[in-house]
């Protein structure tokens, strides 16, 4: 990935006391995002508010659209007109965005969507926390799609991972989803925004070669292909239909296979480069706690208590949720007696852990749906049980 220093105009360097939602907006601005289209929804609205407030001084465009469908549609248009783009929402809004998330995947449009998860289903409990949209992020749109999803555990990571999300999005030309939660979104902590020259961003790569060689797509299962910008005179065409490299509709079974394979392998084939994990004492551990987002911070207390009891507990924190770290779980499976998977839902990522463990280690789900973080004691009990 080619990177350059961030444009200082969007970087509000220095230490701040801010919540996760605001940090996402700052991360976007620092990464060079200059177009935001969104729709208000608790508990994500603060990101939109921050962006709207900052847009005039940064020289960015903010628009509140009529709904989430329009918001993400506007991002697609703005991205092809040359801007880095982002939006923010939570479950009910994400459900509406799913339609054009599919179009964004199909047209390989870079964008960042933050989903500040709240308790569902349906309207659920708007002000309560959740990690319930983990599967929706990947399996929401119809058809085979691949996206990248990142999961911050603090306001600082909200900033850092939003920059990272833009970089991945620009390089792989894929929507990247920040899967955070109400707790992190509304939690105020110290956030240090580095000076602009220390923030590495992937600049928009626009095609500038001869017109007859211009192709909006290249189906080689790799990232790094340039976008074509509207107004540059290449007369590009893009469509949600199965298409050839020129972007023209070519809805045949053969072409469908080529396109879908590319979309899937572009992410799966580069999983090793994309995936980031935060591991602590996983080697030689009897029990590995697999957690993400706010839950990983609750789990810390349980892990510490278990270690005091002499249990060899490792922690595997998922920073990248999708693509899933199949390889790492596979390596640990069989070595550890058990995986403990606490999450604020009825058990979602635990299914992935089970799949990758392949029966070689026990997998214990500590699901906790409803809208609150875990009591660390519950996780500790699960660790004890896993160690038996």
């Amino acid at each position, binding site marked *: 990935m080619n990177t350059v220093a961030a444009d200082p105009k969007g970087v509000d360097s220095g230490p701040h006391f801010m919540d996760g939602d605001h940090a996402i907006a700052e991360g976007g601005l620092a990464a060079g995002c200059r177009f935001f289209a969104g729709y208000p929804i608790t508990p994500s609205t603060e990101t939109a508010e921050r962006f709207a407030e900052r847009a005039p001084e940064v020289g960015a465009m903010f628009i509140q*659209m009529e709904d989430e469908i329009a918001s993400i549609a506007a991002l697609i248009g703005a991205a092809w007109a040359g801007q880095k783009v982002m939006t923010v929402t939570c479950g009910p809004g994400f459900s509406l965005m799913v339609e054009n998330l599919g179009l964004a995947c199909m047209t390989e449009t870079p964008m960042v969507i933050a989903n500040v998860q709240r308790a569902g289903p349906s309207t659920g409990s708007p002000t309560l926390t959740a990690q319930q949209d983990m599967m929706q992020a990947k399996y929401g749109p119809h058809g085979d799609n691949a996206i990248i999803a990142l999961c911050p555990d603090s306001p600082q990571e909200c900033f850092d991972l939003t920059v990272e999300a833009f970089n991945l999005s620009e390089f792989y030309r894929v929507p990247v989803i920040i899967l955070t939660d109400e707790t992190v979104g509304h939690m105020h902590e110290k956030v240090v925004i580095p000076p602009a020259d220390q923030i590495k961003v992937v600049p928009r790569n626009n095609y500038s070669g001869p017109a007859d060689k211009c192709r909006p797509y290249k189906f080689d299962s790799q990232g790094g292909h340039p976008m074509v910008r509207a107004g540059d005179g290449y007369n590009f065409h893009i469509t949600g239909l199965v298409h050839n490299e020129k972007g023209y509709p070519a809805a045949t079974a053969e072409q469908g296979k080529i396109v879908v394979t590319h979309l899937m392998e572009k992410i799966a084939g580069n999983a090793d480069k994309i995936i980031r994990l935060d591991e602590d004492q996983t080697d030689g551990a009897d029990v590995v706690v697999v957690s993400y987002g706010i839950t990983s911070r609750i789990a810390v207390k349980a892990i510490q208590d278990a270690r005091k009891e002499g249990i060899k507990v490792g922690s595997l924190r998922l920073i990248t949720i999708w693509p899933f770290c199949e390889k790492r779980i596979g390596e640990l499976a069989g070595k550890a007696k058990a995986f403990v998977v606490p999450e604020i839902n009825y058990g979602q990522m635990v299914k992935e852990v089970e799949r990758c463990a392949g029966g070689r280690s026990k997998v214990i789900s500590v699901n906790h749906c409803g809208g609150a973080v875990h009591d660390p004691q519950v996780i500790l009990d699960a660790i004890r049980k896993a160690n038996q």
Partner: protein
Amino acid sequence: MSTDIEKFKAGSPMASTLRMDRMPHIWCPGCGIGSEVNSFAEAVKRSGVDPKKIVVVSGIGCTGRVAGYVNFDSIHTTHGRAIPVATGIKLANPELTVVVFSGEGDLAGIGGNHLIHAARRNMDLVVICNNNFTYGMTGGQVTPTTPGSAVASTTPYGNYEYPFSLPLLMDAAGATYIARWTSLHSRNVTQSIEEALLRKGFSFIEVISPCPTLYLRRNRLGDGVDQLQNYQDNSILKHGADTRETAIDYQGKIVVGKFVEKSKPTYLEASDKCCIKLVGDDYQLYGKTIPEREAEEKAEKERIAARRAAMQAEPEAQEETAAEPAKAPAPKAAAPRAAKTKFQSKVMPAKQALAGTKKAPAKKTAAPARKAAAKPVKKAAAKAPARKAAPKAKVLAGTKKTAPKISAKTKAVAKPAPKKTRNSSSQSR
């Protein structure tokens, strides 16, 4: 056959504005979309707007395929979402001229919310709406504009919903340019698109158009040319018409013309104004200050004017226009620009020849008050051969395969579900 196509591709006057490598297109013979695309291509040429700076966005459906055939930057979006995608393009690069070309089902049905909000914001877009009263791509279902009692595949016993009148909807929502024409009025369509391309703000151009394969066939209304005859007989030219009086009844009169043209700040202009108050004169959007952007815009306007002047200097062979009947007198309410626009009477000489009819009372109908105008048209319709403007009851009764003997009266329908209702359309979905 293929050699014909190659010949056509090579010799087409539209070769620079259409993607010839994508021809032939998917539209049926007699469909109105092709002539709208021609009008659009012609309007772009005449407008002098830099083709590089034009982006065409379509939704889904027959008209949704337009984006794939025009040789501009073009995006074929999801169903109903052309307008928000276009909004994103325009706001991300204000230098672009963004055109939405889609059907009424896409724009006013599934995309209705986006349509009204873009109009409300006075988003600087040109929206061309092909209104054929039917969802063509999926096999002829009822749409939000299908006139009362028309048969569609999902209203097999006649439509009983109330349709939208799109000019009224757009007027209420705040659109600053509203025109309606039919497929018969292709030069007027060109004229309107040209005007819209050159102005700022939300422009909505509705084109009533025939769908011979589904709407016309299912309603036993003949083919595309028969429907053009209907447009000729039933169109009432009325610039500046009250949009509350633009509703279209089944095969009834169609008020056409430029209904609204007014000026108010666009979304971007309003946003600029707010930001400059806030930030001061050095306010920049995407790194450009307002004076910088204004200077660029002015320079572009000059280039456009130069291109237009060059175009007009070219000897125009297309001056069959001269042979046309006198222009309809501009109504009092029409904007000052209307005076210089060459709005023709609704009667097109070519079509006249084609249909072989006497002159329709176009000129008379246009000028006097609406009441008076309505009458001669009705008479004309009554006089027209039954095939062309058959009263709906007759049409329904006369159908063989559609629901037998059930017109608007639903009573009879309740019990016997007709077995052989539709063996007809097997369109792809």
